[in-house]
């Protein structure tokens, strides 16, 4: 029972981090139609920057916030490089692959190739259903739920959120009604960066971060996002949980060498299901 609970909790925590990345994918895709391959790099920077700030003596909490703000700025820079000016969509997509590589190079240069971690939320571990659980998992849960809630409010209740939805559904009409679509795209990159940064800062204490963790984070974040067809933030959260749990249960009950492979096979299944759905609904 305790092993099951442990897989369940780590699976949910990882799944929520995937969901944070997935929400970033969805935000950026809805406004710009670009699938940002560098999404995982935001999480890597979030974790590694927090580590450096903590080492510099900046208190916990402040470090995380500063790191997330820095990653939001990185998001803005990535956004400018990816979508500024007149650029074909295919080029934007390939540029994000380049940005992911560039991030790996920078992260390796600054932080080296050894996995990096720091202690998370202080306090005693607690016991749920026979499993010893670090407090950090609780923090992951609370922060992500608050974020998903506020994202929902942002989109439903604010001018900014509505403008963003307008860009997503019809960029041309949005432009006609005075919305600056490019600027909204850049804002999506800033938000996507911040969400990824938060995910990384939350994940690093329970799972050491390396310079090249971005590929698996990107692909699983994308997997979560594709569950909602890249446009639904709610389904993306559900997708994150599905992939996080699948990975942990495969790793726990079968073999750790198959966890990613099974999750990726599931990704292909979801893609096929989406292809079928699009075909049936004539959404192509």
């Amino acid at each position, binding site marked *: 029972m305790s092993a099951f609970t442990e897989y369940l909790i780590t699976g949910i925590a990882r799944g929520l981090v995937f969901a944070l990345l997935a929400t970033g994918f969805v935000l950026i895709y809805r406004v710009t139609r670009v699938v940002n391959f560098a999404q995982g790099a935001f999480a890597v920077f979030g974790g590694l920057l927090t580590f450096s700030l903590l080492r510099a003596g900046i208190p916990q909490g402040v470090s995380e916030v500063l790191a997330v703000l820095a990653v939001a700025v990185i998001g803005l820079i990535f956004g400018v490089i990816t979508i500024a000016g007149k650029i074909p969509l295919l080029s934007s997509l390939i540029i994000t692959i380049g940005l992911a590589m560039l991030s790996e190079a920078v992260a*390796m240069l600054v932080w080296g190739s050894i996995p990096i971690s720091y202690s998370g939320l202080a306090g005693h571990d607690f016991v749920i259903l026979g499993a010893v659980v670090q407090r950090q998992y609780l923090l992951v849960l609370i922060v992500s739920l608050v974020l998903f809630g506020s994202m929902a409010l942002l989109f439903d209740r604010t001018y900014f959120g509505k403008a963003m939805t307008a860009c997503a559904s019809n960029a041309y009409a949005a432009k006609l009604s005075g919305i600056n679509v490019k600027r909204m795209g850049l804002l999506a990159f800033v938000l996507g960066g911040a969400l990824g940064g938060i995910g990384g800062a939350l994940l690093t204490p329970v799972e050491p971060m390396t310079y090249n963790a971005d590929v698996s984070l990107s*692909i699983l974040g994308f997997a979560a996002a594709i569950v909602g067809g890249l446009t639904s933030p709610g389904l993306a959260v559900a997708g994150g949980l599905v992939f996080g749990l699948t990975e942990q249960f495969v790793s726990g009950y079968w073999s750790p060498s198959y966890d990613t492979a099974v999750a990726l096979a599931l*990704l292909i299944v979801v893609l096929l299901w989406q*292809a079928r759905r699009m075909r049936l609904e004539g959404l192509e």
Partner: protein
Amino acid sequence: MSERMRSSIVLSLAVVIGLSTLALPLVLSSSDVEIYVTIGLATIVVTGLSLLMGFAGQVSLGQAAFYGVGAYTAGIMAVHHWPSLVALMAAPIAAGVIAFVIGVPLLRLKGHALVFSTLAFQLILLVVIENTSFLTGGAIGLSGIPALRIGPLAISTGKDYAYLVWVVAVAVLLITRNLTRSRPGRALRAMAITASGASAAGIAVESYKLKDFTLSAAYAGIAGGIYVFFIGYISPDAFPVTLSIEFVIMVVVGGIGTVSGAFVGAAVVTVISQVLTSLGTSPSLPPDLPTVLSLGVYALILIIILRLIPAGVVGTLSDLWKKTKPSASASGPVDTTGRSVLGPAVQAKDG
């Protein structure tokens, strides 16, 4: 300059490049012959990928996986005493069949889906290879691969492989060039400009995309097959995700959708990678440096080219070349490289 003169210049340039590359293995040192073979193999893979990116508007991040499928197919068959030529022929077939099977459903999705699903395919393939040691040698690798024999001819030295690769690369380039100028080629061009328009004109867009994807995988497969006989040993480490990205970079450097760009991109990127490796590996330097350098330089090349000269080296040169034309007769498909379709090709996708 008259039209006739221009085309004869292009033709003689191609002949000069062809002959000089043909003579090159005779004078190269053995380590340079290895680079020569690497460039040739990359040209074969990149020609297919360029066709896929330029005409079907799809990016595959799993081209190294198809390269690996080819290598492992040929390697495993050769180790099990199949005739080596049969093993080599099976390599592109295996890669093509797998691409066809996964392409049928996946190509229905928009561009980004193929990026991630081919990447996922590659990562899964690597796990499968590592966990089927009885067949593939697992993480340790597959060794004891015999030399290639074509009839009575044993292909064993580096120079032999240099010529084999040259012949296959030229064949692949010619097939692709003829393909882009024939009826399927025109269909692909129409698709590249507007998929829905092409579809309305009766072009079976889905089917052409699938054939394009299958062909690009088969090219990667044959290159992988030659690679395994050349190296004589393979392990999963030979087919990392960065290799797939490297192929994409070669396409972008040469110019997306240009046939001759495949060779230029493969040559430029391979040489840069060799220079970086020799620069970065010095005992006095930190051991991480080669990786940092190659990742960073590749990334910068990719970003800078796409932002500043999106047509790639060959595309940009051929644009400049066209500007020297006395009377710009815009009628008819005069473009020999497929370059003119690039802009609309990539803009029309996914929109």
